[in-house]
């Protein structure tokens, strides 16, 4: 815990003071904000749609056991195979069995947070399978040896020049390539991979119980290609991606597009119900769907926080979050970052290790306001905080320190004053009093920022 929180603090501080990083992030989020306005114009009654979407997800989650069994029955009838994985280890072992049976050497992978969650790439590499990320943003991140920075825009923190430099370093291309040319480089490189890969991996945005299918949303076409050429298609999907049926997509596809990227509908929305059928031209010979629990049923057991499982991973709450805007995606140190990540991670990965994330948020309510399925995100964060304090995981003095941290993180003037003095005072000092006894002490400037802050804000 000490280490994780310390890393979080020092990184959040470093990121918040890193003007370049902040600038890139803000540029991306501003562009996002502009397009979302356009996406929303398609609706005559958006509030109604959001409410209906929440009702549907409610129904799907509240009857999850029934729908999962229905999915299995129908998907099996379509010729697919379902694998139930209670945790990441189980999922990986099952994948290994398939890899061995197929003697697979290479895999292409479409963007999927569930495969990030189980660290599939590292695992495949350990077992001699070369796994290639095919989504451009993920391809960039893989090339750089970094995890995705944002659930929708994995390389959000990199400028065009950063990418050009990375490509020049790793692929030997010209350092002055434009965004268009860089995309073309990736396109040409990956074309060959789809055709010769043994296995195609994808995630899924939705599970469709009535037809026994899954649905994948993407703009680039790499998921289409990754699931069409290889002989084996493996889907790794969190069980909470359930809908009540195929017809729900007519509403969820435009909704996800609106909040994810500001499009009316994403370029490719694909439903896959099994391997190639006899009367079909092409497609995989085998299709597996791995249903991943990995902490989800624990979250399900809390009837208040259960609604966090309604999330459709649009990324809107990340983009709306003032803390995310300051500290960025990697600082969280989790697969799922931003407000939704702070809500679910303590349940997926352990309260003790991750409850601090609930404190590292401003409770401004922006996240709740933008969420297309109306998850009460800021209430759930508050609820997490409460639980953490009750369980004795967070002392009162630590609580106070967090509230000061938030002020420092969110206060424009403090940030701008930045400079040497402020940096030296390090936000970490805030935590010295509450942690000093039990946790290894950090080395700081002798003057306590905490004390000075208390003088400035006597009411706290």
């Amino acid at each position, binding site marked *: 815990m000490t280490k994780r929180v310390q890393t979080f603090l020092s990184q959040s501080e470093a990121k918040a003071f890193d003007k370049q990083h902040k600038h890139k992030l803000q540029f991306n989020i501003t562009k996002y904000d502009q397009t979302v306005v356009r996406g929303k114009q398609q609706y005559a009654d958006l509030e109604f749609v959001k409410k209906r979407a929440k009702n549907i997800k409610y129904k799907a989650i509240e009857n999850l056991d029934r729908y999962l069994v229905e999915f299995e029955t129908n998907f099996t009838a379509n010729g697919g195979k379902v694998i*139930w994985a209670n945790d990441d280890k189980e999922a990986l072992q099952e994948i290994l069995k398939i890899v061995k049976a197929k003697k697979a050497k290479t895999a292409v992978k479409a963007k999927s947070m569930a495969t990030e969650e189980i660290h599939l790439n590292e695992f495949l590499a350990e077992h001699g399978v070369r796994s290639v990320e095919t989504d451009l943003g993920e391809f960039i991140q893989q090339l750089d040896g970094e995890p995705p920075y944002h659930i929708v825009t994995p390389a959000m923190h990199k400028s065009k020049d950063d990418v050009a430099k990375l490509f020049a370093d790793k692929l030997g291309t010209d350092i002055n390539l434009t965004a268009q040319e860089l995309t073309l480089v990736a396109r040409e490189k990956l*074309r060959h991979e789809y055709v010769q890969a043994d296995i195609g991996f994808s995630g899924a945005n939705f599970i469709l119980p009535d037809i026994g299918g899954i649905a994948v949303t993407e703009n680039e076409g790499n998921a289409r290609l990754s699931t069409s050429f290889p002989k084996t298609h493996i889907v790794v999907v969190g069980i909470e991606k359930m809908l009540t049926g195929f017809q729900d997509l007519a509403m969820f*596809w435009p909704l996800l597009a609106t909040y994810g990227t500001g499009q009316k509908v*994403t370029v490719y929305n694909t439903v896959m*119900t099994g391997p190639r059928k006899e009367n079909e031209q092409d497609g995989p010979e085998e299709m597996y769907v791995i249903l991943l629990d990995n902490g989800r049923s624990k979250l*399900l057991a809390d009837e208040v926080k259960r609604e966090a499982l309604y999330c459709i991973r649009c990324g809107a709450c990340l983009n709306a979050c003032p803390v995310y805007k300051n500290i960025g995606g990697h600082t969280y140190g989790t697969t799922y970052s931003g407000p939704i990540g702070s809500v679910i991670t303590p349940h997926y990965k352990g309260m003790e290790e991750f409850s601090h994330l609930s404190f590292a948020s401003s409770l401004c309510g922006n996240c709740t306001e933008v969420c297309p399925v109306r998850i009460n995100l800021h209430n759930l964060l508050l609820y997490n905080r409460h639980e953490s304090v009750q369980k004795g995981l967070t002392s009162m003095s630590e609580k106070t320190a967090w509230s000061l941290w938030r002020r420092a993180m969110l206060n424009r003037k403090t940030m701008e004053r930045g400079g040497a003095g402020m940096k030296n005072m390090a936000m970490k000092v805030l935590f010295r009093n509450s942690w000093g006894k039990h946790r290894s002490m950090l080395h700081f400037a002798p003057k306590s920022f905490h004390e000075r802050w208390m003088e400035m804000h006597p009411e706290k």
Partner: protein
Amino acid sequence: MSRNVSSKELMLTNIRNALINKSKQPFPNLEGTEQVYSREEESLEVLFAQELKAVSGQFVFCETGAELVEILKEVVSIRELKHALCPEPWIQELLEKNGFSDFLKDGAVTGMDAGIMACDALIARTGSILISSRLASGRTLPVYPPVNIVIATTEQLVYDIQDGFDLLRKKYEGTIPSMINLATGPSRTADIEKTLVLGAHGPREVFVFLLDQTS
């Protein structure tokens, strides 16, 4: 195998236990709204054309098969397309009768400049093409070649995605295709500094020829 059965049982037991306490329906008395989307007073053809254009697709309305052939020839020559696959029998027949025999080749999809294909429905509201793996074009032809040419007829044109699903259901009653895809414009990415680039991994260009069935 037996291990997997127990994995299933374990997961279902965990879920059922978790769901013993029910949560309340978020919006129990949600009134239905007839029109959730802003609807424009345009014909479906005009609406589809506008929307397809908005996502950088190209729209061609053809009153007759002869007109279609003529415009397609222009596209082939301007884009300098050398080889295309067109597995859909009725389109293939139309094109072969009209001088496209050398252009249409047998062979691997990976060697083609274009894929020419039919669809299951067109969605006017979003400018989308609804296809499935049951069509002769299968899974790979619509996405691998850099140019995608879709030939549709006016009775395939519907207002919203929901209506397209209804058409699919009628057409494939009982036996669902292994893949259903809603494609809206050419492949794109904005992963590098939010700069829009067309032709990420799928086609760079999408043409929709809408053939009038009423004339």
